């Protein structure tokens, strides 16, 4: 990637080494690298300078595990990348909202989170379809179930959805802003509550970033114990969602078994750290404490037992023809659309995209033990359900090996102060997909800028695309097959 500063996952570089290119060169280099098969990891403001806003682009070379960084400085507008590269569309909407920089030529700069100082939430023009017999269905922010708030607007012709508008921001609570100026005693807890069902994922992304910026190396055992929490989180959420999918088509036996099994896996996490969501476990420098051989043995035993029951419950799913009839050919996301939108995680892999941070950006966390990457095809609800199950199987295999041989070393290494004037990115494959945390430090080694990209940020639009042409009654099913985070998106 010519013109880029080359780095990797959790590899800090000096801010002074970050190329600041003229706008034309920046656009040209970014678009040319994307055209050559690189992937857009991030497009964001980075700092306010005396001459304008510094924009940062981070591109991934997934095959080589490299990250390229390049920046430019713009006054108050620049020619948008979206018309040339659709995957930039959401980043540019965010950029406009957070930094006031207008990407000229962007098709529609709708608000992303409705932060303070902007338009009131909900006061926005929605995409509208007009014509005889076309009608709109508006849902939310308060939904029918115990679900986070968000607003959905379906443009329908009869039962058929022509387009779905997703308008979020109701959970916006200022997480990124609160992380800036740290690290302090609140930081790790803020990381754990970016998305409660991904406490281990976001805590790991945060800790990996802090460790990179402070030059901390955890013990092999500490990395193993982190992976244990991450993979348990993956299994718990996937099996819970398989149960919820069964529930959405009225197949109650599998729904209740999987619901119970989700809890059983959460209880295994609680064996490690006392919290079912894995709170208080992952800390900068490693994990909070040494669990001891007995607990690890108990985890392995509990997991084997849960695996037998999971196989039994999930087998019911695949063998129910009425359930398959609802899952198959519903909410299809083509591989092309998945690539164009830059989506990540199980929905991307279920559409045939072979991408997984655990293998592509292993870092010390998964070095030498990345599990097999399951890649599906079809991209429909069935493919996403099957994808979840295959990822559970791979996670169980990995956990079985790890719990048998967790490695040696202290649970917690001391963490020094952060290097001044540096920048680093941290990538972790959470259960929903790629979690990105980025930070820069100031001259005193405090966090100057902190950016979080939850996989949901990349994937929400894919749900809208998957719903096109579908029956509105299939929305719960499509929605659950993605199960995206509102709070992780809204921050």
């Amino acid at each position, binding site marked *: 990637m010519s013109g880029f500063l080359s780095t990797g996952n959790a590899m800090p570089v000096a801010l002074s080494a970050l190329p600041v290119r003229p706008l034309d060169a920046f656009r040209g280099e970014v678009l040319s690298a994307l055209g050559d098969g690189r992937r857009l990891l991030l497009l964001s403001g980075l700092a306010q300078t005396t001459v304008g806003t510094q924009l940062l682009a981070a591109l991934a070379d997934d095959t080589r595990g490299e990250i390229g960084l390049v920046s430019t400085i713009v006054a108050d507008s620049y020619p948008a990348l979206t018309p040339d590269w659709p995957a930039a569309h959401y980043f540019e909407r965010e950029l406009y909202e957070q930094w006031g920089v207008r990407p000229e030529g962007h098709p529609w700069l709708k608000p992303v989170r409705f932060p303070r100082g902007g338009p009131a939430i909900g006061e926005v023009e929605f995409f509208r379809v007009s014509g005889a017999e076309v009608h709109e269905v508006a849902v939310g922010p308060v939904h029918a179930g*115990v679900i986070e708030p968000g607003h959905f607007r379906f443009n329908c012709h009869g039962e058929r959805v022509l387009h779905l508008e997703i308008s979020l921001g109701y959970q916006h609570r*200022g997480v990124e802003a609160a992380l800036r100026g740290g690290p302090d005693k609140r930081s790790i807890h803020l990381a754990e509550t970016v998305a409660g069902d991904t406490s281990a994922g976001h805590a790991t992304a945060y800790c990996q970033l802090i460790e990179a910026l402070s030059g901390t190396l955890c013990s092999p055992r500490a990395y193993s114990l982190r992976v244990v929490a991450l993979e348990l989180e993956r299994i718990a959420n996937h099996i819970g969602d398989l149960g919820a999918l069964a529930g959405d088509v009225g197949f109650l036996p599998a729904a209740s078994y999987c619901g119970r099994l989700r809890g059983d896996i959460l209880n295994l996490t609680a064996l490690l750290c*006392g919290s079912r969501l894995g709170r208080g476990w992952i800390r900068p420098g490693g994990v909070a404490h040494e669990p001891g051989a007995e607990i690890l043995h108990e985890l392995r035993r509990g997991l084997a037992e849960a695996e037998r029951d999971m196989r039994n419950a999930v087998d019911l799913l695949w063998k129910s023809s009425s359930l398959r009839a609802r899952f198959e050919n519903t909410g299809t996301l083509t591989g092309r659309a998945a690539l164009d939108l830059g989506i990540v995680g199980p929905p991307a892999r279920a559409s045939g995209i072979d991408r997984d941070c655990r293998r592509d950006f292993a870092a010390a966390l998964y070095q030498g033990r990345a599990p097999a990457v399951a890649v599906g095809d079809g991209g429909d609800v069935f493919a996403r359900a099957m994808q979840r199950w295959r990822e559970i199987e791979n996670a169980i295999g990995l956990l079985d090996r790890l719990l048998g041989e967790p490695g040696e070393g202290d649970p917690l290494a001391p963490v020094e102060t952060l290097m001044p004037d540096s920048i680093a990115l941290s990538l972790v494959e959470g259960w929903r997909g790629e979690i990105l945390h980025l930070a820069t430090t100031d001259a005193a080694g405090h966090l100057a800028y902190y950016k979080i990209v939850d996989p949901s940020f990349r994937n929400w639009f894919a749900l809208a695309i998957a719903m096109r042409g579908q029956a509105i009654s299939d929305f719960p099913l499509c929605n659950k097959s993605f199960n995206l985070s509102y709070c992780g998106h809204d921050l």
Partner: protein
Amino acid sequence: MFKALLARARQGHRTARYPAQPPSLPPLFRGRPVLDPAKCVAGCARCVESCPTGALQVSAAGPELDLGRCIFCGECADVCPADAIDFTQDWRLAASERADLVLTGDGEPRVAALRHELRRLLGRSLRLRQISAGGCNGCEAEVNALGNVVFDASRFGIDFVASPRHADGVLVTGPLTANMKEAALRTYEAVAEPKLVIAAGACAISGGIFRTHPEACDGIADLLPVDLYIPGCPPHPFTMLDGLLRLLGRL
């Protein structure tokens, strides 16, 4: 059909025998903290300095811990040089009065059962509308767990319903973001009188880890008349079940 029956036999009966038997909790579970002022080292305020949510204060009478702010991270107990703070296995944390959540020594929060007339009105059923208002979805996950076969809140007549019009009250989670304020208050208004308000989790009670964020309201205590506070981050499903059953006078 035969396979489904076989699976049913294999998966077994899993509902916890609560409240007839105490719940099984993991050994490291952090429940109700107990403070021992006698052990406190004079002039030491390490617990106060370590607390990420400002839940702890030390006065001349000793330490004071506000369960409404506590996220049960256990940092205070870890840094205390005298072991004056201990997180016990006690899952019973709910209280009817906000002031009762402030613990000194080995006090326990208390839940006063609802007035007799209201309990008669509710009969054996409590229908709640859940309002998710800006947290991390952790409390919502544990509220959802109340519906699984292990906790099975519906065996006590407790259910979460789709519309505020069908509800006897609201259970709010999250610090109440500015962006959710109007929707949350309108949902509350849509519930018919008499109605209950339950604040579940540190965020809804006090703002939790998001306290003082300009994007949120520091919880609902100043905006809605709360009948039951359920501390935790998130509260364990047994903590929620315990609070709800006490509110209904069933425990």
